[in-house]
Structures are given as structure tokens and as C-alpha cells.
């Protein structure tokens, strides 16, 4: 379905074989490769290695990437002067929605599918800046906000953009506007208590039906197949508005829980644990929530960090300003973390800048690179498909003019599932942004 739609949308040959010759490959997982080649078939990476030159008899030493032969029928993409990096992944965003939240506090049944604006400037910019996968999910101003969707910033409709329809459920333990922490938690507990009651009622009804069926069968003298309690309730028996929460508590749906402050973290873990979805929970943290890092470590769940990476705080006693660089706190404890963007400062709207800020502040480069690629991919349950340049993964590749974390590096081309979907040389909007509105226009077709 997805490749089919892509085929309709994208220009050039669809699917097929592609070979990307790269000056440098930064695969995130595994060592860097100089003068490498990436082979792609039907939108998937089939092999990563060095190109076997005809007539040479170079031997592969153990631990080195394999020598590959470029198939004769592959479309060759030359990036021999460039650095190839996996498409970046943003594990939590409510940009690209016309409005991030409902007014009603508990809306598990709504889905961002209905509110995604495919022509939003955010998606255009995300592609230009190398973000190829985004979980778009309702905002933080909710009790239970609704369901998110994993998208790529390419396509004319939300369906066409979809990478994974079940993005996860958004919850918040920090008070929604007009709520206090007391009423927020009360509302959450009540929602889950109501859900339990509802499910018991349905089960009760199904049991009655089973009994009836049994009696009827006995009367008619046939043998009835008595189902076990666990199999009794089918999806159709549930109210469609309740189904998403049932999916959540039965472990079929991921949860993203917003914790604005450190004090909220314990509540988030409690709610998730009590209702059986802790194993699929990701905590979305505000800048101050780093103080609960030890509790987060103990619960073993990953986090998505606020775009503001530095937490400044005035000491209540001395008036001195204290600074904490948040990602380092999580890195040092070995908690998987993903970075987020935000259009509030010059750099924070770029994932690469966020990772570069991590490196500048002492997070090892490898950990910083993971926080914008493989870690968010794993958080989205797409670790096997996205986030690194490895055989078997989707061919989402960025062809960069330099190192991924250098501020002077540009995304030159973006390959999405094997197709080139962005070329900087054809980015008229970018040219105008850099040269001003009086800049002479390029002639079409030149």
C-alpha cells in the first residue's frame, strides 16, 4: 500500500534497485565506512559495504565491511563527495497539527489522522532538515489526549504519509490548563476505574450470553462450545470509543506520558504500572524532570527530552544560577533518550543541532547520534526498520555535504524508501530564504 502510493507520488523509477556510492557512511550502528556503497532493493537496504573494484584482489580483513558488487541494473546515486547518514527520527511532536489538543480532557478516541495538515510548513521543513520519520501525537494540554501516528514528511495525504498507523496514546499526569495536579490525577484514576467497570460489565453480559447459549444448547440437545473468559469478549463487543483504552491496558498500544516536572514522574509510573501499560510507556519530559532520573532509571523506560536541553534554576537560598545539561544526566545513567525539536531558538528546530549541543556539553558523539536516530526509532517500535544504515532497514538516507553534526552541513538529498524525494539544488524556497525576495528567479527547466 505504502510503496504503491509512493510510486504514484514520486517521480523517477519506483522500487527497483538503487546503489548509493558514498564518500563516507555514518551508519550510527557499526563503524563508519569510507568510500562505501549502499545497495537498496524495493525500498530496503540490502547491503552496506565497500565497492569491489574490478580487477583488484583486495582481501577483506575481519571486522571490516564487506566488499560489494554494484548490480548492473541498479540506478546509481553518486554521493562520493558526501556523507550518508540515516534519516533522523523525532519520537514526539505535535507540530503539523492544526491544533494540538481538544478542549475535552479525556479523548482517547480521537486520532491525529483527522488533524494532520500535510502541506504544513513543518513537514516541508522537516524533510529539508533531514527528519524522515515523526511521531505526530496530541499535545501536552490534556488528561488523555488521543492517538498519534508515525509519519514521514512526504505525501499529499495523511494516509500517504503514514509509516505506522498505531503511533501510541498520549496521556498527561501534569495538569491540563484549568486543572490542578489533584484533579488531573483524579480524572486519570476515574477514567481507568470506569474502564475496568465497563469491561467487567461487558464480560458479565458475555458470560450471561454464554450461560444462555449453554442452557439453550442443552435444551436443544446439542453440544455447546463454552469459551474461556479470556476469549469471551471480542473487539466488536466493545464500544468504539472505549476500544483505544482497552488496547492500551491490554498492551496493544504504546503510551506517551507527559511529565512536566520531576514530581510528576512517580505519578506517571504509578498510573502506567497500575493499568498494565508500563512496559509500553515512554515518558515525555519537561526540562526540570531530569531530577527524577533515578526513578526513571529504576522503571526501565526510555524518555523523550524537552527541546530546551539546558535547565537553569535559581537557588532559592543564595540566588545563584544553577545549570544542568539535561541529556548528560540521562546518558550518564544509561537511560535511552530521544531528542525533540522546537522552533524557539535558532538551533533547537534542528535535530542535528540538538545532538551537536549534546556533544558540545560532554555527551559522547555516538550517544548523541543515537538520540536522533536509532533510539527514537526503537521508542516508536520501529527499531528493526529505521534509525541506522544496516541491511534489512528502510532505505531512508540523508546525503549530507559534511559531518551530520557540523552547523555548516546541509542536507543535499533525501532518499526515502529508496526514492530521492528532496534535492537542495531544486529547493526554490530555501534559495529565496537565503537570497531574499529580490533574488533573480531560476528559469524553469534550466
Amino acid at each position, binding site marked *: 500500500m505504502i510503496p504503491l502510493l509512493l510510486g504514484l507520488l514520486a517521480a523517477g523509477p519506483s522500487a527497483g534497485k538503487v546503489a548509493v556510492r558514498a564518500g563516507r557512511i555514518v551508519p550510527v550502528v557499526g563503524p563508519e565506512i569510507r568510500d562505501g556503497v549502499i545497495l537498496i532493493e524495493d525500498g530496503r537496504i540490502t547491503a552496506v559495504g565497500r565497492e569491489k573494484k574490478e580487477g583488484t584482489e583486495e582481501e577483506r580483513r575481519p571486522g571490516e565491511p564487506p566488499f560489494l558488487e554494484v548490480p548492473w541494473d541498479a540506478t546509481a546515486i553518486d554521493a562520493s563527495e558526501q556523507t550518508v547518514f540515516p534519516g533522523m527520527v523525532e519520537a514526539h511532536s505535535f507540530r503539523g497539527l492544526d491544533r494540538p489538543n481538544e478542549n475535552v480532557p479525556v479523548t482517547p478516541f480521537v486520532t491525529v489522522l483527522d488533524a494532520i495538515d500535510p502541506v504544513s510548513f513543518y513537514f516541508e521543513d522537516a524533510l529539508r532538515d533531514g527528519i524522515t520519520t515523526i511521531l505526530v501525537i496530541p499535545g501536552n494540554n490534556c488528561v488523555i489526549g488521543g492517538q498519534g501516528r508515525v509519519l514521514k514528511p512526504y505525501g499529499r495525504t495523511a494516509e500517504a504519509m503514514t509509516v505506522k498507523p498505531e503511533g501510541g496514546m498520549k496521556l498527561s499526569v501534569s495538569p491540563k490548563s484549568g486543572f490542578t495536579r489533584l484533579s488531573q490525577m483524579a480524572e486519570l484514576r476515574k477514567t481507568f476505574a470506569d474502564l475496568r467497570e465497563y469491561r467487567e460489565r461487558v464480560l458479565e453480559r458475555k458470560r450471561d450470553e454464554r450461560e444462555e447459549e449453554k442452557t439453550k444448547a442443552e435444551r436443544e440437545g446439542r453440544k455447546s462450545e463454552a469459551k474461556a473468559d479470556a476469549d469471551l469478549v471480542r473487539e466488536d463487543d466493545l464500544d468504539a470509543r472505549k476500544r483505544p483504552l482497552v488496547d492500551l491496558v491490554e498492551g496493544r498500544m504504546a503510551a506517551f506520558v507527559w511529565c512536566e516536572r520531576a514530581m510528576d514522574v512517580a505519578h506517571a509510573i504509578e498510573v502506567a504500572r497500575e493499568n498494565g501499560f508500563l512496559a509500553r510507556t515512554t515518558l515525555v519530559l519537561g526540562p526540570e524532570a531530569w531530577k527524577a532520573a533515578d526513578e526513571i532509571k529504576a522503571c526501565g523506560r526510555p524518555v523523550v527530552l524537552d527541546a530546551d536541553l539546558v535547565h537553569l534554576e535559581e537557588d*532559592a*537560598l*543564595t*540566588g545563584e544560577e544553577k545549570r544542568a545539561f539535561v541529556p548528560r544526566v540521562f546518558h550518564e545513567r544509561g537511560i535511552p533518550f530521544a531528542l525533540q525539536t522546537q522552533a524557539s531558538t535558532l538551533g533547537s528546530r534542528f535535530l542535528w543541532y540538538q545532538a551537536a549541543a549534546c556533544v558540545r556539553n560532554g555527551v559522547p558523539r555516538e550517544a548523541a547520534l543515537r538520540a536522533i536516530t536509532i533510539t527514537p526509532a526503537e521508542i516508536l517500535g520501529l527499531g528493526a526498520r529505521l534509525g541506522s544504515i544496516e541491511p534489512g532497514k528502510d532505505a531512508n538516507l540523508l546525503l549530507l555535504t559534511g559531518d551530520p553534526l557540523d552547523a555548516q552541513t546541509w542536507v543535499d538529498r533525501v532518499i526515502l524508501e529508496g526514492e530521492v524525494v528532496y534535492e537542495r539544488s531544486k529547493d526554490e524556497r530555501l534559495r529565496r530564504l537565503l537570497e531574499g525576495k529580490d533574488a533573480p528567479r531560476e528559469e524553469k527547466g534550466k
Partner: protein
Amino acid sequence: MALLVPLALGLAPADGLKGVFAGTVWTGEGSVRAKAAVLLEGSRIRGIEEGAVPREEPGFRTWPGGFVTPGLIDAHAHLGARADLAEDTLSTTPEARAMDVFEPSHRDFARAARAGVTAALLSPRDDNFVGGIAALVRTAGPAAGRVVRDEALLKASFGAVARAGEREATSQQGAVAALRRAIRRGKEEGGSRAIARAARGELAWLAHAGAPEEIFAADRFAREFGLRLHLVHAPLAGEAAARLKEGGIGVVCGPFDASTPLRSLRSPAALAGAGVPIAFCTDGPAHEPEALRLSAALAVRAGLDPERALRALTVDAAALLGAADRMGSLEPGRDADLVVWSGNPLDLGTRPLAVIVGGEIVWEEGARKPRRPGEPVAPEVRP
């Protein structure tokens, strides 16, 4: 305390109080004297007799366990006239005089006297860049002697409160420019007399300057025009102590209470340590008169030398307010304003036993005196 000699009703005022004997006398200037008598003559202090013994003679009172200090001075208050001490429509009112709203019989003064506060600076509020002229008044005693200095200080304000609302100026730079203009106009013919006097250094300025930039601006302003300046409501002044010392600027500290941050409480110690003159205030009636001793005690807890704290409540406050020749110590010739305490006044368990203003006992524990016309109402309060 029941052992105290009950005050005879109608204690011969004609003869007047001649002497006060107490276990401890802290004179304000110099050391603490044990077993001493403060000798009075009319409304003045005649001297101190060391090694005195209790005497049974008329006009001589004895508190064997008492601790005598000069009467405390509240260096910034709005007693009895809070609402009247700021003009709302104008931001520069140098000719306004706090004297004009002084109401000697107001209960605020009686309450202050009962707490051992015998004098207070009646000051315009912080709401105007130039608020007017503050007066130094006694809190009790005969009406004739209540005003000590009718033109004690010129009150100014660099605070945000003076920039609030829709009137000139709305910014700190605008406020300073307004003060500059006021000085320049004051120097011209027909300008404000008060400003002219203050510009010549005849009248010191008392400026509200809460934030560091306000202190900085006030200091620069004083240097620019060669003014005599003291600060009030400057909780962080301690952090600029060296600079203030250099400029000869004094600071009126407080009022402090249990909610005051430690950073502010440390200010008096830092100032005193750098040699900056300090005094304390209550902003009464916004705070109770007891807040004066409490402020000093909290400052002591945060590092201020207790001796300096007592001086700040008395002799140093008098000097800062330009009345060192009249009050603040028990030197011969000074006004006989003193307080007999049950112990050191910096000890919060201490309470006043008797308050003497102008040589007369204006309040005494356990005493019931018929109220005379013009005398403050001082309802009995037992600790």
C-alpha cells in the same frame, strides 16, 4: 516581676524623675555598665553613676534586674498617616512635608512607645521619585517636644513602585532623568527650596533602592551631584557594601520577619563589617513596632555583631537621621529618652518594663495611670 515597686499613682511629676537604677545600663556610647544609675535633670540626662546602690529617695526608681538602653529609633515609618504620605497624581513632590500630617495622639505612636520605640522617622512613602521631607518625631511625651527635626531628610525613591501607573516616568532611566531634572530645576531661581537644600548637601536624601540596579543608580546619582544619601528598603545593599562605604552612604535595614530570605538578613552584617552606618526600621504601621527589635535580632542571628545591632537601633540611627546631639545615647545633655527592659532587648524573650521619654515615665508594666489630655492612649498589654 511582682517584686517590682508598684508605681504610685500620680508619681510626683512636679519633682520629676531624678534617677533610674538598673542592674545593667547600656549607654549607647561605650561599654555596658553593671549596677548603674542614670541620673536625670528635667528632660535631660545628667550623667551615669557607676557602682550605684538602690536609693530610697523621691524621684528615684529602681529596677534591680532591669537593662537600660537609650530609647529605640525607628528610622523609617509612616505612623498614623500611611494613606496621607504619598501624592498619587504627581511623581515629584519635593515640597510635601510629612510634618503636615503628623498626628501626635494617633494610637500608632502609643503602640510604638509601649514597645520601647521612643522616636521614629515619619517619612513619605516610596511611591514618588521625590516624595517630600521626612520628619523625626518622638512617639510619646509632652506635645511640645514631640517634633525633634521637622526637616530631617528628603525622601526619594528609585523603586519600581514609583514607576507604576500612567504617569511620568515609567522606566528606571526615565526616573533618574526625572530626578536629574528636579535637581536642575531646584538649583534654578524659583525652584524647589527642598531640592535646592538637598542639592547643596544641607539636607540628606533617603532613597528607596531595592534592586541592585537601583542601588547602583542611586549611588551614581549621589556622586554625580555630590549629594548626601542614605538608602532604605535595600535588602541587597550588603552586596555593594564596599561601594557604599566609599560613598559615605548609610543604610536603613529591615523590616525583617520570619519570611525574609537569608540573603537579605545577611545584608546588615556585611554593611557593618564594611563600616557602613546602619539603622533599622519597621515601616510602621505596616509592621508592628516589635518588628524593630525582631529585625535587629534576626540580623544578629545572620552574623551582625550584637553591639553593632544595639547601636543601629539607637545611637547610629540618631546619627543617620541627623539627631545624634539629641538622642540615641545616654551621654550627659542628651534627651532623657530611655527604656528599662527585662533583659537585653535583642533577646526576643525580653519585654519593656518602663519607657521614659523626656524624663517622664510614659509607660510602665503593670501601671495604670489616669489618661491626661493629649497623652497617648496606652492600653495595658501583658506579655
